[in-house]
């Protein structure tokens, strides 16, 4: 074990952890904004209750996303300083723009929204949640543009004197085709999580609190969330399909690794499940769908998909001796888990909708159990998606330009990285338990009573208690 290994583990752990909270922030900010808009439009208190209820869950989650995000920005300099030196000219700009354009918008307007209930004019208060939601979704674009440069570097040249990458075309970086398709894919994946959470909580109350005065609100939320899940699942699949084709073109090794495809095939079949040697090079049993991989990768059922061995030989002659294949079991299984968990969430949403048809109330214990695990499924799908896309890029940190092992900080010792890895893991684990318990507590508590809202005309009363105060 050396500093490089620990630095990689730390990046993996802190990034996957950060991305447990980000999808909820992205998705729920918009869903809460939609609910508040519905209240604004109809005046129906049911939507106000749901806005406040899901808004609270949103905020419990939001705090975690914010604080774990700072770690991400600092980590490039702390653990990956040679990477930062190499790509800083290109990679730093989207990060700085993300902060200036998106994070200020998000954080400032979240503050206005939390503390502005009954204090800001209603219209302005509604605008605040929309501004925060837009900021949040915008931030995803810039960070994904930065990540897409690592997958498919464009708009740069290597300075022959310094050996560093230098920006030559910023528009090319922002319109990287990987970024253009990863952005909607990531957003759709995020709405999958947010919709699932809305369903879980709504369904639990529908089934457990029968006859409650708020059943109508929960029924609405359950169905609303289910539709969000179904629509986003469709979008995830559609964008994922385009991603597969772009990946086959710009990172063929990643596509081959997703499939454990060692030899070039045309047509190539998609393996649903393979039992074989751990590295996948020898198979004992395999369940395969003919033509599917060719279709996924190229759009043509008879298209050629390059295999790992051929690509390895090609890269070795291009970049010099070395192993240019990622860890195949990791990419193979994370790719399948990503798809499987995502589809499972969509299937449950379908069942939930079916169980509510024509005013029915579901009674099945199994449905309730499935509903309760629902948000975990897209979270796992998202995590495996990131593990796949980042591990599938290995051994490169910037594909074709810099190896991961050359990006690590030279001046940082193993002890230092171990200290920070341990510290982050411990504090993250503790906070995960606390956050989960709080979410459950507030989810169980149900929608708030909104009958004691002050009338709209006494906003000048300085003695009045503050809404949503810490």
């Amino acid at each position, binding site marked *: 074990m050396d500093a490089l290994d620990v630095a990689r583990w730390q990046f993996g752990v802190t990034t996957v952890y950060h991305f447990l909270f980000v999808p909820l922030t992205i998705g729920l900010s918009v869903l809460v904004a939609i609910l508040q808009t519905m209240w604004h439009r109809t005046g129906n208190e049911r939507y106000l209750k749901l806005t406040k209820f899901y808004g609270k869950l949103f905020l*419990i989650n*939001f*705090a975690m996303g*914010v*604080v774990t*995000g*700072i*770690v991400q*920005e*600092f980590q*490039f*300099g*702390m653990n990956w*300083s*040679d990477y*930062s*030196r190499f*790509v*800083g*000219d290109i990679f*730093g*700009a989207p*990060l*700085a*723009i993300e*902060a*200036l354009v998106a*994070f*200020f918008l998000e*954080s*400032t*307007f*979240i*503050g*206005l929204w*939390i*503390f*502005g209930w009954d*204090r*800001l004019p209603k219209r302005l208060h509604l605008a605040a949640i929309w501004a925060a939601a837009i900021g949040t979704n915008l931030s995803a674009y810039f960070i994904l543009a930065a990540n897409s440069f690592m997958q498919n570097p464009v708009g740069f040249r290597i300075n022959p004197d310094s050996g560093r990458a*230098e*920006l030559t075309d*910023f528009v090319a970086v922002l319109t990287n085709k990987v970024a253009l398709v990863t952005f909607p894919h990531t957003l759709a994946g995020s709405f999958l999580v947010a919709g699932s959470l809305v369903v879980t909580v709504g369904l639990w109350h529908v089934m457990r609190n029968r006859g409650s005065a708020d059943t109508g609100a929960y029924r609405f939320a359950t169905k609303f969330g289910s539709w969000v899940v179904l629509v986003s699942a469709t979008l995830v699949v559609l964008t994922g399909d385009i991603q597969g084709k772009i990946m086959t073109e710009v990172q063929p090794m990643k596509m081959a690794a997703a499939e454990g495809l060692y030899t070039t095939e045309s047509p190539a079949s998609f393996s649903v499940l393979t039992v074989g040697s751990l590295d996948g090079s020898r198979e004992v049993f395999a369940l395969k769908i003919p033509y599917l991989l060719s279709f996924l990768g190229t759009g043509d059922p008879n298209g050629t998909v390059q295999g790992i061995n051929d690509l390895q030989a090609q890269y070795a002659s291009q970049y010099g001796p070395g192993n240019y294949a990622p860890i195949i079991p990791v990419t193979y299984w994370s790719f399948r888990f990503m798809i499987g968990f995502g589809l499972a969430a969509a299937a449950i949403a379908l069942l939930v909708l079916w169980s509510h048809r024509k005013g029915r109330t579901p009674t099945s214990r199994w449905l309730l159990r499935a509903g309760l695990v629902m948000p975990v499924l897209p979270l796992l799908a998202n995590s495996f998606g990131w593990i796949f896309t980042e591990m599938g890029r290995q051994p490169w940190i910037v594909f074709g330009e810099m190896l991961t092992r050359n990006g690590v*900080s*030279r*001046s940082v010792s193993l002890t*230092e990285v171990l*200290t*920070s890895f341990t510290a*982050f893991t411990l*504090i993250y684990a503790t*906070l995960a338990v*606390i956050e989960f318990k*709080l979410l459950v*507590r507030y989810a169980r508590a149900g929608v708030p009573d909104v009958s004691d809202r002050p009338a709209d005309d006494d906003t000048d009363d*300085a003695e009045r*208690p*503050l809404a949503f*105060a*810490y």
Partner: protein
Amino acid sequence: MELTTVWFLLVAVLFTGYFILEGFDFGVGMLLPVLGRGDRQRRVLINTIGPVWDGNEVWLITAGGAMFAAFPEWYATLFSGFYLPLLLILLALIARGVAFEYRHKRPEASWKRRWDQAIFWGSAIPAVLWGVAFANIFRGVPLDADHEYVGGLLDLLHPYALLGGLTTLGLFATHGAVFLALKTTGDIRQRAGALAVKLGVGTAVAAVAFLGWSLTIRANAAAVVLAVGAALALLGGLAAARVRREGWAFTGTALAIALAVATLFAALFPNVLPSTLDPAGTLTATNAASTPYTLKIMTWVAVVFTPIVLAYQGWTYWVFRRRIGVQNIPQH
């Protein structure tokens, strides 16, 4: 003006803004156990910064991002070199940020006590360490010819740096007390005002010593003027706090922080991180900078968006301009 100079100034401005804004957040956090008698008073203190602390922290994220984009070498050397102090700052900011949001989410006193601890330490630790970090940036650190940090943790903890840490600790605590006197009513307002004066006197001694020591390390005419200005602003702020002119007191401490940071950056220019070993290792605004093309794009983005950000963030402070007191805290 060269774009590298523009970005040197912008990074300086971003850190200045960060220290002024999160400076009082840190101060409020540190004073929580001192000024907050009982849960309702503590909630008043936290709610004075409730709507704004997150936006204030984005100044740091923007400063870090700007450093990365405009001076990648500076960012890379600094963040990998100051590894453990930055780790502590991150852990503190994590605990503190979550604490604001979670403290009131359960009624138990033990729960609140624990988050109060997180707020206190999460504010005090960065308040000290930012001073230590900036004192080291100013004095210089051991860098080899490749701009790699070759010192250890102890190379960052010398008396000058510790005095820097004491200075920021004192400045932020005083700034926080002055802010609380400005933003609260009743008993808290009185005690915060009185405490600001007491804290301020000690802080003034530390700050004058630190700035004086700094100017013996490196100085130019502008830095001397700025340092004198910082001292005068702090004393003026304290005088205003003494006579309960809270708006002027806050202006004074904010200006003192701004001028103290400006002193360091003015004397440092054109260096951004001097090497105490090989002079070839010294990072400057030129050799640490990105290409002119990147700087040009970043400049346009900053020119367009900075005024917008300042406008809506300023507006937030206007919306929440009113003082608050225990009467504003809901019963549950």
